[in-house]
């Protein structure tokens, strides 16, 4: 959040396909912009240091840690949060894979994981176990122990043993 009285800047972007324009302090984080202004709380705050991945959203299709990314950096860009992703046809496949493997427990890291997986698959980087392990290294899950997440990711990658 920003000190009161800071200079505001005008930004225009799309969030989950909807155009949004706002006047924001230069120091406002994208995470606070989404959570506080737009009330999109699917992206979560945890480590505040771009390590854990719970705040992951996609900006122009690529994953960013919204906890260390300024709202003004998203000016002119397309932001996708889990709320938007959940509205797409593609989401069902991710949802089913995670449900089938029970690849979530407390659910706090789950939105960030789903969006990271989507961006990996869109970029053609979701294939081998090595790619999955590399691609998900920035998403910490303290509950599941990752086995089920790996299994769900393999299924999404089309590499799950049948």
């Amino acid at each position: 959040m920003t000190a009161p009285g800071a200079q505001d800047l005008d930004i225009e972007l799309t969030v989950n396909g909807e155009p949004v324009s706002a006047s924001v302090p230069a120091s406002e984080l994208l995470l606070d912009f989404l959570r506080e202004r737009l009330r999109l709380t699917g992206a979560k705050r945890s480590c505040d240091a771009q390590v854990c991945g719970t705040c992951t959203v996609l900006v122009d299709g690529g994953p960013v840690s919204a906890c260390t990314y300024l709202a003004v950096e998203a000016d002119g860009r397309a932001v996708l949060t889990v709320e938007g992703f959940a509205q797409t046809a593609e989401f069902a496949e991710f949802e089913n894979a995670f449900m089938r493997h029970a690849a979530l427990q407390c659910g706090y890291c789950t939105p960030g994981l789903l969006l990271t997986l989507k961006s990996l698959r869109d970029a053609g980087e979701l294939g081998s176990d090595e790619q999955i392990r590399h691609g998900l290294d920035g998403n910490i899950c303290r509950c599941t122990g990752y086995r089920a997440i790996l299994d769900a990711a393999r299924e999404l990658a089309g590499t799950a043993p049948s």
Partner: protein
Amino acid sequence: MSVLERTELLEVGVSKPRKDAAEKLRGQAQYVGDMEMAGMLHGKVLRSPHAHALIRDIDVSAALAIPGVATVLTAADLDDIEPYYGHAIKDRPILAIDRVRFAGEPVAAVAAESEAAAEAAVRAIEVTYEELPVLGTLAQALAADAAPLHQRRPQVGLFHGLGDLGDQEGNVCYRYRLDAGELPGAGEGDIVVEGDYTFPAVYQYAMETHATIAHYHGDGVTLWANCQHPFLVQAELADLFGLEIGAVRIVVGYLGGGFGSKSYTKLEPLTVALARKAGRPVRIVNRVEESMVTSRRHGMSCHMRTTAAADGTLRSREVRFWMDTGAYADNGPRVTATAGDAAPGPYRWPAVRVEANCVYCNTPPSGSYRAFGATHLQWIGESQLDEIARRAGLDPVELRRRNLVTPGEPVRPDGSGKPLDADLVGDVERAAQAVGWDEPRRPWVGRGVSVGLLAAGAHPVSRASVRVCSDGSADVYVGTTEMGQGPRTVMAQIAAEELGLPSELVRVHGADTRFTPYDRSTGASRSTTVAGLAVKRAAENAAARLRETAGELWEVDPEAVRLTRGRAEFAGEEIAFPELIAKRFGFRGGEIIEGGEVRPTGGATGSYAEGPHFWEVCCAAVEIEVDPDTGVVTVLRTATVADVGKAINPQLVERQDEGALLQGIGNALFEEMLFVDGEIINDNLLEYRVPRIADLPAQTRSIIVENADGPGPYGAKGCGEGALAAIPAAIVCALADAGVPMTELPLTPERVWRRIGELRSQATTTMEG
């Protein structure tokens, strides 16, 4: 259950999908930090920069002048109450009074219209401190000339639960002893293994930090809090603020992980005090560095000595250890007692001496963390056992086979408490086999197996209620907190089984102390076993009403009516629940609602000494490889044993085991909170490393053992903690098997590499000598 013996379970024992999955996957699940109330203010806490200091002055005038600031709270605002809490020992003030005892202790709090204004105000508060000598380590706190951290006479908390507080000696706030048999005299043991060991402070790192919204109003106070034990917090808040228990309402939704970090009372009293002064709802959400000084796992120093006959028959074990509970006791006494119970290990000991000490230090408070006590001690006892096996020329599995207690034998060497309710020999054999125990070993590869017991179940008091609505669907009201472990799914399965409903038609809700029946706590692996049994009984009672109605309708013995798939059936007749309930009430309304209760029976009180409710098995085996040039330990294969009596939902049991496995790897290999003069220096995720997906071993196996030997529903007993105690122990044993015995955790590459260097130079010296 009806007199018609149920031939098969339809809902229980099935891996049903999680009830909460869709909400969580779609980002719709609400956590406290996602919630806003009308008129809500944002709270921020000013925390002490010093580990030990007197507070000479607090000047809040500049803070109050900041636009948007509603109020600033200091200890002076708490004059009208006795502002000390602590469920075990009432030693902790809501805000520091006259002195701070750890770096990070709340000194003042601000409520403001925005988080930014609250943060600015916190920075504007001027506090004058006079620094005191810091007792930042166990050695400093235990020194003969150490000043006591606390000046008030210790008062027992509402839920001490461990008998008398006893005399406090210096900074030892609680002591637990376990004595049995006559220790052998010097030189009597053919094999003697003895050493000093160190276990680090560890952070639970639930991904969601502590968060509370409090609204203090004319009728009492309402909180939305991410607490594991809402009913214990409710009682403590009522006691603190002079309210009736029913005037304190706590609503608990989803928790973003707990692992013990959100057990007992944490941020709630401060949030209530701030809201009380502000007269408006206030939300406080910790940042991660604040949660790291809110709860953690105890660091520990331990001395252990184990003796055995030359043939490997165990003779005695002596253990003394000291746990750094921080500046306030929190759950330290129970952690200490549980560690004391875990110290001997589940073996037949002719003689045991355990002295467990819980020690105040000028460090942040320590409390519960998954498998507490057992995680602290199991790796030490098991590594000594393996050393005995080496000297006796026995396979470690064989040594355990000969010495482990068997079902029905006493676990505590003094014969007190619950006898063994598990097949430990079978568990050890299964785990060892799953990591290729008898396969040839490559150099620098080692295998280890470990087994232990964790006193589980806590105080066995839970109530629940089950309501069958007029449309035939059902609600379960149970106080268990859903923090990821899956109780909403498991409770739905249990209720569904008894009601003869598909679990898809059963809803399980979060706790709201105004409406939800009492449940002691969510921890100690008790939800399925204790609260689950209360749910089963409530559902049985509701089912009895349904059968009774069908019996009246058909003029038959209700006991002969069968409930299945949402219908009552008897001799070819059947009626669906909605019609059945309509028959009972004469219209399309009404409901069936019944309760269920679990409490100590047969003259028992549920005390710790009588307990535990059950012994949770902590058993695992691993294969590791160590790189002698770098000290890096890689876990190759793991097997964890979930000895659960009956798996209500096998997939969720596996997930619990796998989660504990990775936390065990973190605790063993790299997790460590570092303190300098009592102040934590790695309070962020860049410097405090938790396991990532890359740390997942190539091969993991979760073995579910179902011997129906638990006190819970269908013979179930709790799970999900054991692997966390067993994995570090198995890793330490495996590393010793690879040639590198260690006495300090975590097994960082540097520590292991240095040890390999020492061993090599010792070997060289021996050869030269």
